[in-house]
């Protein structure tokens, strides 16, 4: 069925390829059509899974010791009854037969329908009993996955680079997995412009759309789709004319990109001779290749928490040391700023824990300070790696003087310990702090007095300043880097840091947005760190900027409360 869906384009470019439906949760399953002659087999496969789970539960029940509390047996009985209920054991088979779809999908669709009914229940305790339904479904899914099922035959152009990932949402952990593949595009039903999906798509320089809402329902597995990342348009099953037009646009986009590559080795200097430092944000050591390809002058932000995701254990000191050393060596003497792990909130490795307000919870440096052993392991690995190049340590989410002092004490202790062990490290290693909490931005002196440098994390700074959850697409449109409060905070940070002669970088999404490049320059920013994919675009803007003319306009922007006038001023800056 041909149709067009509109979402929020978060990474430009055009991708044309086959849809691949995926998602991160255990219960998110792929959808595919089963050939008519195999429908009966698919239905039987589902029935066999139900039988298997019933046998498993009965076995479990038989093994319960007589001394166990009666709840145990009651609990398993309940699951057995849910399993046998027609809504789970019969209806999915009808779905398989009617829609010719795979068993997993039929079960998932039926579960969603049941859960939607549970969600309407007013009584909170009764509503939460849906957890039992989910657990039973999970068992059946597991049984299904253990059985030889119908595997969709690879289509002719099924190479990864032609696959377009269609998901409900992507977690950082998914993203790390996906990075090992070469998908043409990611599109998701949820998310905003700064969601993980968006950030990663931009870092990979592949087109991406979020907040499509119904893509997973309307797009079928292996269907031909066009992703226009700049316009936020997803075209499903396009006709030949549309396809030809988009192939032409895709070609033009590629030519533009090739032209940019020539800027790689040119220093980033404005027309009036102001040098600018353009560095790259990376997540994994392998990202250094792309950073260098795009002429990064260093790594301004190595998000070390990505080393901690997607694994049951934690990387030990030696493993971390090797990763940090590799990045430093691969950067050939250029500075590498490693942020200590910024886990917690939406990125915590433990998905089982439910946190109602993760962005304000135990995360980043707060988490580090509650588990000093893990933190010190990382600090030691960084210090050891500093012997092999120029490493800076960056502390995320500082808000108070106490956190800062505790952190600095731990670093000193780690250094002394290495001294005792005669392990070499860079004695002049610089320690900096992320400025991403408004409190830190307003009380900047706390940090400039004791730190060697600062780095502004605009994603969180904006989220906290405007009280907007950037992963919630119902409020994501309120996320505004041009809000007067945000602009004035940024100006304040840059000015205060300059006064205390503390170098300050900006490493959030704003750094890579060419619409804001000149404004930030005019506010005094001289060091940007961004996804490698943006480095050359931003450099191109800087090469064509005459800074002397922009300062008065930027100052005027700081005094302008009216959003319409603000945009007009920004346009003049970018003219």
């Amino acid at each position: 069925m041909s149709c067009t869906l509109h979402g929020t384009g978060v990474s430009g470019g055009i991708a044309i390829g086959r849809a691949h439906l995926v998602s991160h949760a255990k219960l998110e399953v792929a959808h595919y059509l089963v050939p008519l002659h195999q429908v009966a087999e698919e239905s039987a496969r589902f029935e066999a899974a139900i039988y298997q789970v019933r046998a498993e539960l009965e076995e479990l029940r038989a093994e319960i010791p007589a001394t166990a509390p009666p709840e145990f047996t009651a609990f398993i009985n309940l699951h057995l009854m849910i399993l046998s209920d027609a809504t789970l054991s019969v209806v999915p088979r009808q779905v398989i037969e009617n829609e010719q779809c795979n068993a997993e999908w039929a079960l998932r669709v039926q579960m969603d329908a049941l859960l939607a009914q549970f969600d309407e229940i007013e009584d909170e305790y009764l509503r939460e009993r849906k957890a039992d339904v989910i657990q039973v479904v999970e068992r059946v899914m597991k049984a299904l996955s253990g059985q030889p099922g119908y595997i969709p035959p690879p289509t002719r152009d099924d190479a990864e680079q032609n696959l377009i990932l269609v998901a409900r949402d992507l977690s950082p952990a998914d993203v790390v997995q996906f990075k090992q593949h070469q998908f043409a595009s990611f599109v998701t039903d949820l998310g905003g412009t700064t969601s993980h999906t968006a950030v990663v798509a931009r870092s990979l320089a592949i087109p991406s759309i979020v907040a499509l809402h119904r893509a997973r329902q309307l797009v079928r597995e292996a269907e031909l789709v066009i992703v226009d990342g700049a316009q936020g348009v997803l075209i499903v099953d396009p006709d030949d004319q549309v396809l030809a037009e988009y192939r032409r646009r895709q070609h033009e986009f590629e030519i533009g990109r090739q032209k940019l590559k020539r800027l790689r080795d040119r220093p980033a200097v404005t027309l009036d001779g102001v040098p600018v430092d353009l560095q790259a944000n990376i997540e994994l050591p392998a990202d250094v290749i792309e950073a260098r390809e795009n002429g990064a002058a260093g790594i301004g932000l190595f998000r070390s928490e990505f080393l901690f995701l997607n694994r049951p254990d934690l990387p030990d000191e030696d493993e971390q040391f090797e990763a940090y050393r590799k990045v430093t060596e691969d950067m050939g003497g250029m500075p590498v700023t490693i942020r200590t792990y910024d886990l917690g909130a939406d990125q915590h490795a433990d998905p089982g824990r439910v946190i109602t307000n993760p962005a304000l919870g135990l995360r980043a440096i707060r988490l580090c300070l509650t588990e000093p052993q893990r933190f010190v392991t990382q600090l030691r690995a960084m210090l050891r790696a500093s012997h092999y190049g120029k490493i800076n340590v960056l502390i995320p989410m500082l808000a108070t003087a106490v956190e800062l002092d505790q952190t600095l004490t731990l670093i000193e202790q780690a250094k002394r310990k290495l001294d005792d062990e005669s392990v070499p490290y860079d004695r002049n290693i610089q320690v900096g702090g992320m400025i991403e909490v408004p409190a830190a931005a307003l009380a900047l002196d706390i940090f400039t007095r004791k730190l060697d440098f600062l780095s502004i994390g605009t994603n969180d700074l904006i989220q906290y300043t405007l009280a907007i959850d950037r992963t919630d697409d119902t409020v994501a449109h309120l996320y505004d880097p041009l809000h007067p409060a945000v602009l004035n905070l940024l100006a304040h940070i840059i000015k205060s840091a300059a006064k205390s002669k503390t170098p300050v970088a900006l490493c959030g999404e704003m750094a890579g947005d060419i619409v804001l490049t000149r404004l930030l320059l005019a506010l005094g920013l001289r060091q940007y760190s961004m996804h490698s994919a943006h480095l050359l675009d931003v450099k191109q803007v800087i090469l064509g900027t005459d800074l002397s003319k922009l300062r008065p306009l930027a100052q005027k922007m700081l005094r302008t409360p009216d959003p319409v006038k603000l945009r007009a001023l920004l346009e003049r800056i970018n003219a």
Partner: protein
Amino acid sequence: MLQREVEIINRLGLHARASARLTQVASQFKSGVWITRNGRRVNAKSIMGVMMLAAAKGSTVVIETEGPDEEEAMGAITGLFATCFGEDD
């Protein structure tokens, strides 16, 4: 067909375990057993239906039984409600 109105008196209402008990008992009879609350009528032999009735403490439900053993079924079901589904609370 028999019809009786009962009130939910146990603390947690028709929660999962009470629902399971109700479904088990209802399934022992040949008669059809239905429960209605707020205009929603479900088969008492279906755990999912009973759970979704969302009958919290203090709400009233209407029980219907119809079939050869409808009286015994009604007696057993109303008995369950009256004894809080055998719970201690």
